[in-house]
């Protein structure tokens, strides 16, 4: 049994046959470590949900192997189901039932006794802030409330591994933040979380490591910081007095390549990363230069995504509605934007 709660090797899933075959997932290798939040990032149709559906036993792989919580997803599907919590896309919750009834139902399905189920239900309702709405039918819940209930349902049996398939798609910013907090809290309690998202910001904020999937293949995998560092160094922009520009430029040059930023500011690509910011400021201060403005522009996951796929997830960084986030932007435009960000 592997120590990694989620381990996939050469995972493939095809739909259709013959000339109409669609390779939804085309050889995914994945390792999610104990206690981490793993972000699975990609546009619609990239293969995120299909991968999650295979890992949660809802779909059999065409080929390849995967273990979740130490159990093979095909050979020990029942054990996998007992070990995981799943909140699927679109919060599939019976609108005719109340939140409390659904939690009680879920508790029975996972083998909890009536009392244990009741207590656990109350605890979870309070945790996700739905105690007052517990006896209302789900049809009266807002999108955010449904998502929170969905999360609570997936936690009834205290799973060690939690799968969240696009948990915040369509939510308003406040509901999104609430859900993020809850996911962080769960993770702090030791739950390993795999979440799929189209939102780069979400992956950046929550995930210890991310995998970027495109056309069924993982094209990048690692900690967001490492991935961003691979794309380029952060740019530090400073503004000093006009008479101090030359001296400031020579000091900045010691920390990396000089970059053109907006008018009146000096820019340097920090070769050793953002850790050097304090050193740069100290050096400028020791030289008697007065810094009037300072700005650090780090490469984003959007840049990583563009680097890996040749296009961008438009609007992914802001992610207010989620509706336009998966629209691919032309690769040339993407590269142009990145150039402008780093060199203009």
């Amino acid at each position: 049994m592997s120590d990694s709660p989620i381990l996939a090797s050469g995972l493939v899933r095809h739909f259709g046959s013959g000339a109409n075959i669609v390779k939804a997932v085309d050889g995914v290798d994945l390792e999610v470590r104990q206690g981490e939040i793993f972000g699975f990032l990609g546009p619609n149709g990239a293969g995120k949900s299909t991968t999650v559906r295979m890992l949660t036993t809802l779909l059999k792989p065409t080929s390849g192997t995967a273990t979740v919580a130490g159990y093979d997803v095909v050979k020990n599907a029942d054990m996998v189901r007992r070990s995981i919590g799943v909140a699927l896309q679109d919060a599939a919750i019976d609108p005719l039932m109340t939140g409390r009834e659904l939690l009680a139902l879920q508790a029975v399905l996972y083998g909890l006794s009536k009392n244990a189920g009741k207590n656990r239900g109350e605890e979870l309702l309070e945790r996700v802030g739905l105690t007052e709405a517990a006896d209302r039918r789900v049809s009266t819940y807002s999108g955010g409330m449904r998502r929170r209930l969905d999360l609570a349902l997936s936690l009834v049996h205290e799973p060690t591994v939690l799968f969240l398939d696009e948990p915040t798609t369509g939510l308003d910013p406040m509901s999104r933040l609430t859900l993020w907090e809850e996911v962080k809290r769960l993770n702090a309690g030791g739950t390993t979380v795999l979440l799929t998202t189209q939102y780069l910001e979400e992956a950046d904020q929550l995930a210890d490591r991310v995998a970027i999937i495109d056309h069924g293949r993982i094209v990048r995998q690692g900690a967001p910081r490492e991935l961003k560092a691979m794309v380029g160094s952060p740019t530090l922009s400073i503004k000093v007095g006009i008479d101090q520009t030359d001296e400031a430029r020579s000091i900045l040059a010691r920390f990396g390549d000089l970059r053109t930023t907006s008018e009146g500011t000096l820019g340097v690509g920090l070769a050793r990363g953002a850790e050097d910011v304090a050193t740069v400021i100290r050096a400028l201060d020791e030289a008697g230069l007065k810094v009037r403005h300072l700005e650090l522009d780090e490469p984003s996951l959007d840049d990583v995504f563009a680097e890996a796929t040749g296009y961008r997830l438009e609007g992914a960084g802001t992610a207010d509605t989620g509706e336009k986030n998966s629209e691919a932007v032309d690769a040339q435009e993407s590269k142009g934007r990145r150039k402008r960000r780093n060199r203009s």
Partner: protein
Amino acid sequence: MNIAITDPHLMKSGRSLRSLFQHSFVLTKRSVLGRLRQPAIIAPSFIFPLFFAALGSASFHKLAEDPYFTKNIATSFLNYAIAGAVLQGVLFASISAAADLAIDIEQGFFERLLASPISRTSIVLGRLAGSMVVAMFQVTIFLMIFIGAGARIKSGPFGFLGLVIGGALLSLAMSAMMAGLAIKSGSSEVVQSAFPLIFVLMFLSSAFFPRHYMSGWYRTVADWNPISHIVEGFQGFINQELDFSQFAKAWLLPLAVAIVSIFFALRSLSKRLAGS
């Protein structure tokens, strides 16, 4: 509190008959609650049968002046109409119950169930049992309304009970057949498209008019139509003393259809799961 299920005995029992019963029970409860909480869907299965019964009683009451009718069929047309109303109500409610299963598939609740360590069979059994409970409730209400309107059940409480059980078995047969279709198609529209077909089959049976008074191809179709025989079994409970032929028609015939239909539904489920 650590309530993760790790005990091997408990895990084993997860696949046991006890789990099947527990899961089926909670899903039955959900199914019944879901029915009762959709009055706009359940109401037609009460209103239309009662309307047709009222219409038939008003239109054909003179049939009760025919000695053959009163001797061999029913003492009044109202008494005759009970079985047709029960059959119609139960069939319609059963199709709606199966449509709910298709809606579960369409809206993703079915996947939520599949992602849990639930006995797969209980997903179907819960829905079928729910349909039977609603049918028993529905038949009871119908009988009370008809008795209130002046109908009399010749075989007394046993006939009453016979009809309630017959309604439940018919519901089992129809909802299993439609559940199979729901699982196979995953579409509530496909299931609901069965309504017109059921209507035609009912009108081509003795549900609304005795076969004795039919002629030509209409009579031939009604003779072969299993619905005629089921509804005549129901009529027997109301209008005659209890005998085996009523049980055979009202219980055994739906039961036979139910066994085949349940097999079809479970096979559809198995194929759907294998396909995924």
